[in-house]
């Protein structure tokens, strides 16, 4: 058996890490909830596992998403992750090839150059040797970049980088020391044994000229082992816990495990997968001067540490811009939202909520303007005009009175009340017998689509209007107005509807693009997700977003959300219009008369009944 006492710190650290990980993950997996085990078991031998493996390779090793943020930043992450991974794997192959047997002492490949002193002669061994030196160089380039980033994060596209705790700084120091120590240990050994390659051998020879390399080698190998072991002991308590956790998270996600509405099980996997890279910081539109250390990276850190986070949880627009860019793909807004949940029922009012009168009609289509739709009569009136011209029989569900879909309550952490409010609308929807529900409000849309679980088609009006146009139910005049489209958070990032509104707009005029669009779209500042923000700060966001959208002096800013429309109108130079309004303005009403005669008196019937 190959052994030296210096391997003990490494082995102890490694053993400790394995025990802690098994214990921690065991506990979380236990908390995943009923049915999780079955779900995992069923998915284990399916394509999902393959997809997850691919994702692990792309995100945990190559760091594809970080590359998209900034290539240099991506390279830094990749060199450390992929480089280290290959160093371990190739090292194992090298050791197995050398000894001729696959199994050997688990520390042997890591300290291979210490134990194997003979200069290698065969071509294969020389190749392995060179490859290992190359990988070490690859990692060291990453460490050098990481050091550089500490002093100048802007060089890697980051205006702000995370302010780390002292614990994280210690772990960071240990991580950075690992690879230079390995370089020196191997070089010193090469200095007297000649077992190095293109990097370690010349350095070893150089050191040999000025230092007693034979005497120094063993202490440096000790240092290498201690630092490695120390890092592994520190890992579960530092941000580096993300290294093993993210891999598991990716598998669990692919197997269909969803986070529950409490901080347990899956939420822990998400929390510990945060590498605190700080990419989310620059994406936050809340003024950094007022909201110091409140962005997602800090929120998750406090949450993970078990500190009181209620205030932090509420200080967020829930716009999802950070989530869109998060390289780990953590469901950040969900973690904020569930942390808002009231711990006691002290604040819950026993208010009663108005109930929708039940109808049963032969209409296929239900229209729901939403409470924000009632505050923007321009939108609801346009929808009424369009629906009338299209000849579609429909029921205007909240014409007489506004009802809350429940989402604002849910975002405020009042899940029980949200449920109570939504129950009543749900019954009205189901009893109507309609097969399509159209809403003008992306907030209602998200809620109907994801939370109500009714068995009918839920469409945002942008989807529905496009269907009407494509189906020839309405026709519109094309114009030459220069339009800019603003993606509403709840419609774009939260519901994935990006193309339908744009397709409509290209029919109405020429659509110019802005950089911060699609998933990167700015929050209009009207967010219902933030209840504690001051009016001044809200106005700052509204103003800057309106200015941003006006940068090319468009003839009109188009959006698809009543709340965005209201927020942007306040400070926008050019008019802000909903796509429904733009369609209504450009509607060709030639065949309107035919429809009108054909139309049953349904609209009247509805009016009388309500």
């Amino acid at each position, binding site marked *: 058996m190959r052994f030296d006492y210096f391997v003990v710190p490494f082995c102890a650290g490694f053993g400790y890490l394995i025990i802690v990980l098994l214990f921690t993950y065991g506990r979380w997996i236990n908390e995943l909830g009923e049915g999780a085990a079955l779900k995992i078991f069923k998915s284990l031998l399916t394509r999902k596992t393959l997809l997850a493996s691919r994702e692990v390779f792309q995100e945990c090793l190559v760091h594809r998403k970080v590359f998209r943020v900034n290539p240099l930043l991506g390279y830094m992450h990749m060199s450390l992750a992929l480089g280290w991974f290959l160093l371990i794997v190739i090292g194992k192959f090298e050791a197995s090839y050398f000894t001729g047997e696959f199994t050997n002492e688990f520390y042997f490949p890591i300290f291979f150059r210490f134990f194997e002193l003979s200069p290698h002669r065969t071509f294969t061994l020389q190749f392995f040797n060179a490859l290992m030196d190359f990988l070490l160089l690859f990692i060291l380039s990453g460490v050098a970049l990481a050091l550089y980033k500490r002093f100048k994060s802007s060089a890697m596209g980051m205006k702000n980088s995370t302010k780390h705790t002292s614990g994280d700084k210690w772990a960071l120091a240990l991580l950075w020391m690992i690879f230079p120590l390995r370089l020196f240990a191997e070089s010193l050994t090469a200095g007297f044994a000649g077992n190095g390659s293109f990097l370690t051998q010349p350095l070893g020879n150089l050191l040999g000229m000025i230092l007693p390399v034979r005497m120094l080698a063993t202490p440096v190998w000790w240092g290498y082992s201690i630092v490695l072991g120390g890092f592994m002991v520190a890992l579960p308590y530092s941000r580096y816990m993300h290294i093993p956790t993210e891999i598991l998270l990716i598998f669990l996600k692919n197997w269909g495990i969803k986070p529950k509405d409490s901080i347990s099980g899956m939420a822990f996997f998400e929390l510990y997968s945060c590498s605190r890279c700080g990419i989310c910081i620059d994406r936050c539109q809340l003024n950094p001067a007022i909201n110091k250390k409140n962005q997602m990276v800090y929120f998750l850190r406090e949450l993970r540490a078990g500190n009181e986070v209620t205030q932090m949880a509420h200080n967020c627009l829930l716009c999802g811009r950070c989530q869109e860019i998060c390289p780990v793909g953590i469901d950040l807004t969900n973690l904020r939202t569930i942390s808002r949940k009231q711990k006691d029922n002290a604040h819950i009012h026993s208010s009663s909520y108005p109930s929708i009168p039940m109808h049963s009609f032969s209409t296929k289509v239900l229209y729901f303007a939403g409470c924000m739709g009632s505050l923007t009569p*321009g939108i609801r009136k346009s929808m009424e005009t369009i629906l009338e011209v299209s000849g579609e029989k429909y029921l205007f569900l909240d014409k007489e009175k506004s009802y809350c879909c429940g989402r604002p309550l849910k975002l405020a952490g009042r899940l029980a009340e949200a449920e109570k409010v939504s129950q009543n609308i749900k019954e009205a929807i189901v009893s109507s017998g309609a097969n399509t529900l159209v809403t003008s409000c992306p907030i209602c849309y998200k809620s109907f689509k994801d939370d109500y679980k009714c068995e009918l088609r839920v469409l945002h009006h942008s989807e529905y209007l496009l269907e009407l146009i494509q189906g020839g139910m309405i026709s519109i005049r094309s114009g030459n107005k220069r339009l800019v489209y603003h993606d509403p958070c709840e419609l774009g990032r939260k519901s994935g509807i990006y193309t339908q509104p744009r397709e409509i707009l290209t029919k109405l005029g020429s659509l110019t693009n802005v950089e911060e669009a699609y998933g990167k779209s700015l929050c209009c500042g009207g967010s219902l997700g933030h209840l504690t923000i001051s009016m001044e700060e809200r106005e700052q966001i509204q103003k800057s977003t309106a200015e941003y959208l006006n940068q090319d002096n468009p003839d009109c800013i188009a959006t698809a959300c009543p709340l965005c429309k209201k927020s942007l109108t306040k400070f926008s130079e050019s008019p802000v219009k909903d796509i429904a309004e733009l369609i209504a303005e450009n509607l060709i009403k030639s065949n309107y008369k035919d429809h009108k005669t054909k139309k049953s008196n349904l609209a009247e019937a509805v009016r009388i009944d309500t």
Partner: protein
Amino acid sequence: MNKTIVIVGGGPAGLEAAAALGSSPHHVLILEKEHNTGGKLKNWHHLFPNFADASEILKSLEKSLPLNNSEIKYDCDVFKMEQMDGNLLVSLKSGEKIKADAVLLATGFDLFDAYKKEEYGHGIYKNVITSSELEGMFVNNSFPDQLKDGLPKKIAMVHCVGSRDKKAGNMHCSKLCCITGVKQAIELRKYLSKSSVYNFYMDLRMYGQHFEELYQEAQEDYGVNFIRGRVSEIAEISDGKLQVKAEDTLSGRPMKMIFDLVVLLIGMTPATSAASIAQSLALPKSGSGFLAPVHQHISANETCIPGLFLAGTCREPLSLQESITDARAAALKIIEWLKLKDNH
């Protein structure tokens, strides 16, 4: 030595200041952006609290303008000013530049754009009008058909539209809409004897002489109803009728009422025409965006720019009476300043 005084704006404040400066030997030049003088007074019918004829007042303001030392230039947009050797160089959009020894800004106010409170439906529902539009109907004696037929009508007056409303971006009180609402409610009752009028208010600020009396009169003699509560939204139901949702804060209940006409009492906002001038001189503004004088109490007409003075509603919401007094005060300050300048 004779000096040039430029007055920007030929509304009541500008006209009155020019008249007051008429006794001085200086040359007074009024720069008016429209075809004629009078500003928003042109479009007003009767004035609170005594129903004085606005056109008569405007006529007397214009008449008192001495023509020997003053001149009015129409259709000129002032967009920039700069300080030059103790004088002010006034730049017009036409490219013309005028050297002035003193400048009086009497740029007035803008009316709040009611569309910014979209929930009230102005510009969307034909029967939602603003107080200024109603005044215009009285001036031109042209009313929409639905107000003509003599049938009983229900009319709502909505107070504080765009004033004291953080969400609309205006924290300030425009202070004249309360009494305007009372005055117009009486006028509507006189014009449509079978109508009923409801005023929705937060609180009524009857600060001026005879204001409170008019408020009493409105209730006792004209049967105008006052409901304490802010309107949340207005929706068109059928035949152009409007459903108004509000909260009656005295009974603590939400309420809904149907009206034939809704009048929005829109407030005053800082004039956009003064914005570029203020920017070119880095003139400070008050919190609500009106031009800020050096001292609200003792130097209300002076600015931090030597030779630049303020009069009327460019610095805060004022009634006509207050604007006229303010213009006289500003004129006096200008004469003092020019005297001081001569002695140096």
